[in-house]
């Protein structure tokens, strides 16, 4: 069954499919469908009508040269007009080059082939690589990537900032993902017997266990916080705006004063934020967080008296 697509989506898919099929012929519709992640009937219904594309120019007939046999095999009689990769728009060219350059520094890529591909792309596109993507490569990323790829359990020593505790856990990796510049491991934690997300630069130590993961990925879930967490409403001094930019906060006022709502799953993070924001910030609204800043400041002052 053909999926609903806009005209330009349909045309783009057909162009991509005939280009790939042309380069890989002899090829079947089922193989094209598998390559493009489509249902075979969907691929067939997009390719089949292309057989009838024919125009006359000065009494000479031109057709696309696509023949889809009843058994699903596709042939190309000729394709001088279309059988090559198409030009890229600026954003596409820039995005592909930047992605390829960034991936060069990450584990799991075929570095030699990628280097020559990047070089060919840069030359063909005629644009410079003046877009730099810095993706951090924390100490344990390589082992975590390998465990994720091989579906192998790992034992990690992990510092959880939200609880301010170090723990040792065995986890079954689902996915290793970089969001907003930080690497996270999404995994099933055997210690908590639940789905958890771990920041990879807070993994103190990691060991491969040799044991195979038993669970299947239930899909992405929110990283932290969530709808159930109580919310602290904070008035933030204007000069400290940069501190809240990377946080998952909701801005509730941003004219004469900056007021945010921050979900608080643990007061550990709130303490740290209020210390950083300083005396010009203040909790407004819920009284339950009103003393958090002064309490942590007094605890710290005691340490300064002792040292």
């Amino acid at each position, binding site marked *: 069954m053909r999926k609903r697509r806009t005209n330009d989506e349909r045309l783009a898919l057909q162009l991509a499919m005939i280009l790939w099929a042309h380069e890989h012929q002899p090829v079947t519709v089922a193989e094209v469908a598998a390559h493009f992640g489509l249902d075979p009937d969907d691929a067939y219904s997009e390719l089949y009508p292309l057989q009838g594309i024919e125009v006359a120019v000065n009494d000479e007939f031109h057709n696309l040269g696509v023949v889809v046999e009843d058994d699903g095999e596709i042939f190309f009689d000729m394709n001088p007009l279309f059988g090559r990769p198409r030009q890229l728009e600026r954003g596409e060219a820039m995005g592909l080059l930047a992605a390829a350059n960034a991936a060069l520094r990450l584990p*799991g*890529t075929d570095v030699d082939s990628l280097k020559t591909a990047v070089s*060919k792309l840069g030359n063909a596109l005629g644009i410079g690589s003046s877009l730099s*993507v810095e993706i951090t490569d924390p100490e344990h990323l390589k082992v975590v990537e390998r465990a*994720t790829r091989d579906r192998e359990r790992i034992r990690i020593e992990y510092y959880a900032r939200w609880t301010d505790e170090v723990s040792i856990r065995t986890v079954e990796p689902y*996915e290793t993902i970089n969001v907003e510049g930080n690497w996270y491991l999404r995994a099933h934690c055997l210690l908590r017997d639940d789905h958890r997300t771990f920041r990879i630069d807070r993994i103190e130590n990691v060991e491969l266990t040799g044991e195979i993961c038993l669970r299947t990925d239930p899909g992405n879930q929110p990283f932290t916080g969530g709808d159930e967490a109580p919310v602290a409403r904070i008035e933030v001094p204007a000069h400290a705006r940069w501190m809240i930019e990377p946080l998952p906060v909701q801005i509730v006022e941003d004219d004469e004063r900056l007021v945010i709502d921050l979900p608080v799953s643990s007061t550990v993070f709130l303490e740290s934020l209020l210390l*950083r924001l*300083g005396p010009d910030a203040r909790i407004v609204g819920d009284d339950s967080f009103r003393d958090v800043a002064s309490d942590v400041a007094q605890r710290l002052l005691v340490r300064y008296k002792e040292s």
Partner: protein
Amino acid sequence: MDKNERIWKLLMYLRASATPVSWAEMVRDTDLYLDDGPSSKKTFERDKKDLRSCGIAIHTETIGGSDEAAGGTRYAIRDADLFLNLQLSANEGLALEMAATIVQFDAAWEMDALAKLGAGALPSPPPLRAQLSAPEELVSLHNAVDRRRRISFMYGGVAREVEPTLVFWRRGSWYVHGYQNGIAKNFKVDRFQSDVAEGPDNSSSNYEVPDSAEAMSKDPLLHGPDEGIIARVLVDAVLARQIERDRGGVVERRDDGSVVVEVDVRSPGAFRSWLFGMRDHAVVLSPPEVVEDVISWLRALAGAR
């Protein structure tokens, strides 16, 4: 005629015609459009737009001479408008596909590019995936750097004119590095308060292009004046390994597992942010002026109930 079929035939016709063709010739020689009236012309314009959105540019040229067609437009799709001269080996193609699956812009530029290069879906998702934001200004900024164009925009409530040299992404944010009145500066793209206006090609001076680490130190504590003061900070055992791994600078190890690290303090705000990120797991030991600054900050907080 079905729209998809018509667009394909238009594409075939313009590719197969030896020379550019006019709208009148298209109507006369094909069955693509009913007549040369405004409604058909509108359909043709929409078809052109769909082709353009698939990356197929239609070349236009003005008809010369003095007959009734003069001043009109002829259309063609030339090789240069359509094809990318790119000969990737199978391994190179796969490596690019893998790279674009690992590093993804939220505008999906790289995936659109791969579709045009004939790539499909990878057989299995990659073990790593990095998601990058793609702010609207990015294409314009890259364009400006690549073509040495001056740019102007509002930032911090002030109109800026900048000669950009580099656009870079770090820790979840995009920055443009460039020169304002000859002084090197970094601007965070999220904080732009207007669209970016680009000047003409080569309107920017030929500055040396820095790498991103030269443009802006990777260590936020080093942002600020060139010279700072060295502070000694005691970090508890629970965070000692992490701090040593991330920053180094350990000058003393204590029996309880805590460490003393030396930190170059150039911006008091950035230093306090780093220090208090560790809450009561870190204490400044010296010099006295930094200790006093931290204690004053804490006293003000402790009193501000």
